[in-house]
């Protein structure tokens, strides 16, 4: 599976409709409050009962930021109130204790991710404290194959801090860059020095981080193909192992911060397509592998290797190399996947803290997968990660006849086949290089919950 050489503008326009990102299936829209703390506890217990329980992934959500980036759609809180951020840490400690008790201690944590907000909002001592707390209640790994990562806001981190983060056990960083153009930075309220940011990438390498990843965003106000190319050229001088290029979805009616961005400044659909096309062709030209969705990686990076081996996975943090894990979400609004269920914590800090103070798991909602959900999870994962769906494998695992069970879905894929996004044979569905750009549109055909024009509205554009 490799990406299309010439950019299929027409198809991208045609299939670039709104759709979910399939970091999970069923998606968060299907979560419901009927799935409560008791249900979560049951699924966690059952996951311990497996003959060889899955290793664990931990996601720790640290929601605070010092200032507001106008494009941001994450669950975060801008504050300088240290009483609030300190008490958040105390509640997090307590949640780590409670959640740690749910999982057998021989289940090794092979992945750990600090996300936000701005995890580096917290100081070195505080981050170290969280690591120690996690280590007390979970079986943390010291293996070099562990993937322990943190999102870094370069504005809050010095080169000394990078060394410290390596010292406390982290071995991967992902840095938010978005765009180096001063005009764009001003328009989104995120002024960030180019030289300092690139210096941090080098410092991270020197400190022994296995993998350095950077995040860029296209579609930001005032961006042009030319200005964004300048940013990418600059990023490429540091040759990060992974580059994520996210699409800015301008949805001011959903995300109040985005009202600070003048709609007139947001690039037109034509410009967005140009931004995307030139970005992809540039990154591929200089040797990056297109992994899928927003992700690129150097050919010798684990993600590229996993893609070649067909072992790529997708989870709430995007693509990943680890085989299946149970994901434990810690902190406000954090999402987990345990056994045959997804679970999400309370999204409001006060609600989350209130439950923890009452010694209750801070569960807000979730979903237990039905047999049909499990079947479709497998299919959507094969499309998103392997770009290929072998009918015989699905039939064997789920005891169905693929052609019978998915007759309607296969019919609905025919137009996509005619347009060259997929090739459907007797034995499999294969995503074409063009289709790789439009994975969501293909996966959506197998989404049982997606009733066209209806639930699709809540999603951002595919491209």
């Amino acid at each position, binding site marked *: 599976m490799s990406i299309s050489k010439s950019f299929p503008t027409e198809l991208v326009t045609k299939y670039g409709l709104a759709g979910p990102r399939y970091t999970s299936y069923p998606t968060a829209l299907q979560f419901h409050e009927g799935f409560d703390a008791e249900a979560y506890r049951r699924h966690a217990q059952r996951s*311990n*009962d*497996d*003959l*060889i*329980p899955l290793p664990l992934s931990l996601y720790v959500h640290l929601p605070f930021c010092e200032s507001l980036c106008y494009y941001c759609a994450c669950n975060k809180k801008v504050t300088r109130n240290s009483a609030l951020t300190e008490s958040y840490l105390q509640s997090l400690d307590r949640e780590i204790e409670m959640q740690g008790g749910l999982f*057998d201690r*021989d289940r090794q944590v092979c992945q750990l991710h600090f996300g936000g907000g701005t995890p580096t909002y917290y100081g070195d001592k505080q981050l170290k404290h969280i690591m120690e707390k996690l280590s007390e209640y979970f079986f943390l790994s010291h293996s070099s194959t562990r993937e322990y990562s943190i999102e870094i806001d370069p504005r809050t981190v010095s080169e000394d801090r990078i060394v410290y983060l390596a010292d406390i056990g982290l071995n991967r960083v992902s840095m938010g860059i978005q765009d180096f153009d001063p005009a764009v930075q001003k328009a989104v309220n995120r002024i960030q020095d180019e030289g300092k940011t690139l210096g941090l990438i080098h410092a991270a390498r020197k400190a022994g981080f296995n993998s350095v990843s950077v995040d860029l965003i296209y579609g930001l106000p005032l961006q042009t193909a030319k200005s964004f190319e300048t940013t990418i050229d600059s990023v490429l001088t540091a040759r990060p192992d992974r580059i994520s290029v996210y699409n800015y979805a301008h949805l001011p009616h959903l995300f109040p911060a985005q009202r600070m961005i003048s709609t007139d400044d947001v690039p037109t659909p034509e410009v967005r397509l140009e931004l995307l096309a030139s970005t992809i062709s540039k990154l591929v030209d200089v040797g990056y592998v297109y992994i899928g969705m927003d992700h690129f990686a150097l050919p010798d990076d684990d993600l590229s290797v996993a893609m070649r081996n067909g072992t790529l996975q997708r989870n709430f943090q995007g693509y990943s190399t680890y085989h299946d894990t149970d994901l434990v979400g810690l902190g406000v609004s954090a999402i987990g996947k345990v056994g045959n269920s997804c679970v999400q914590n309370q999204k409001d800090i006060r609600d989350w803290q209130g439950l923890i103070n009452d010694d209750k798991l801070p569960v807000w909602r979730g979903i237990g997968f039905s047999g049909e959900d499990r079947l479709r999870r497998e299919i959507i994962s094969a499309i998103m990660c392997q770009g290929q769906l072998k009918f015989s494998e699905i039939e064997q695992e789920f005891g169905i006849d693929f052609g019978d069970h998915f007759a309607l879905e296969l019919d609905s894929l025919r137009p996509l086949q005619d347009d060259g996004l997929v090739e459907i044979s007797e034995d499999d569905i294969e995503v074409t290089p063009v289709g790789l750009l439009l994975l969501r549109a293909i996966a959506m055909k197998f989404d049982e919950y997606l009733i066209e024009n209806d639930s699709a509205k809540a999603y951002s554009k595919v491209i």
Partner: protein
Amino acid sequence: MRSNSQQKPYFPERAQVACSQCGLGKLCLPRTLDPEATEQFEYIVNKSRSIQPGEHIFRAGDELNCIAAVRAGCFKSYLIDKDGEEQVLGFYLPGEIIGFDAIHGKTHNANVVALDTSSICGIRFDSLTEMARQLPELQEELFRVMSFHIAELEASAADLSAEERVARLLCSLSVRFQRRGYSQTEFNLSMSRRDIASNLRLATETTSRVLARFQSAGIIKVNRKKVSILEFEKLRKLARRDP
């Protein structure tokens, strides 16, 4: 059988059993009886309602009234040791008899709990004794089944490595599933790894590590609680025992 006022009775009404029609006829106690004797046997047997996972059919100390033949599902028997830890004694599949341990002291020694949605046939023990006196073939079958139990227990009491223990359990289950008409090489287990570890007298993590080693050696494949045996001969060698 235990009577508990909060619990629905196990045998809702006198549900007549038809052993001659039962799919387990080739495995269960009356398998050697002629049609007339089988009909007689049916009179001392009661069919239970559906028993939910976690429901007990015997508690340690219960007076011996009935022994049980598993009709469907799976049960485990266990003791609670002085530290309050559960010790799993064994697992019972359809066609297997639970409760022979109660004969000598007239009370059940172990707790027996359903691991799946299950059902049993309760066999009144005094009537069974009476009938065995009259039907030598029934008596012989009883001796045979009891002797098999003892032989199994003695074999597992040997000084065995963790690998041997795990391999023996898998071989034993494989043979038992096959006799019940299920696949010999692919089965879904109802017991948790904790139950298995306790039964094998191994640490829980050791049990999983051994299974993971078998898996990386390509001998078995494990998916949650499903086991696929890929190399039966190799597994049997590891078990150092003829099944």
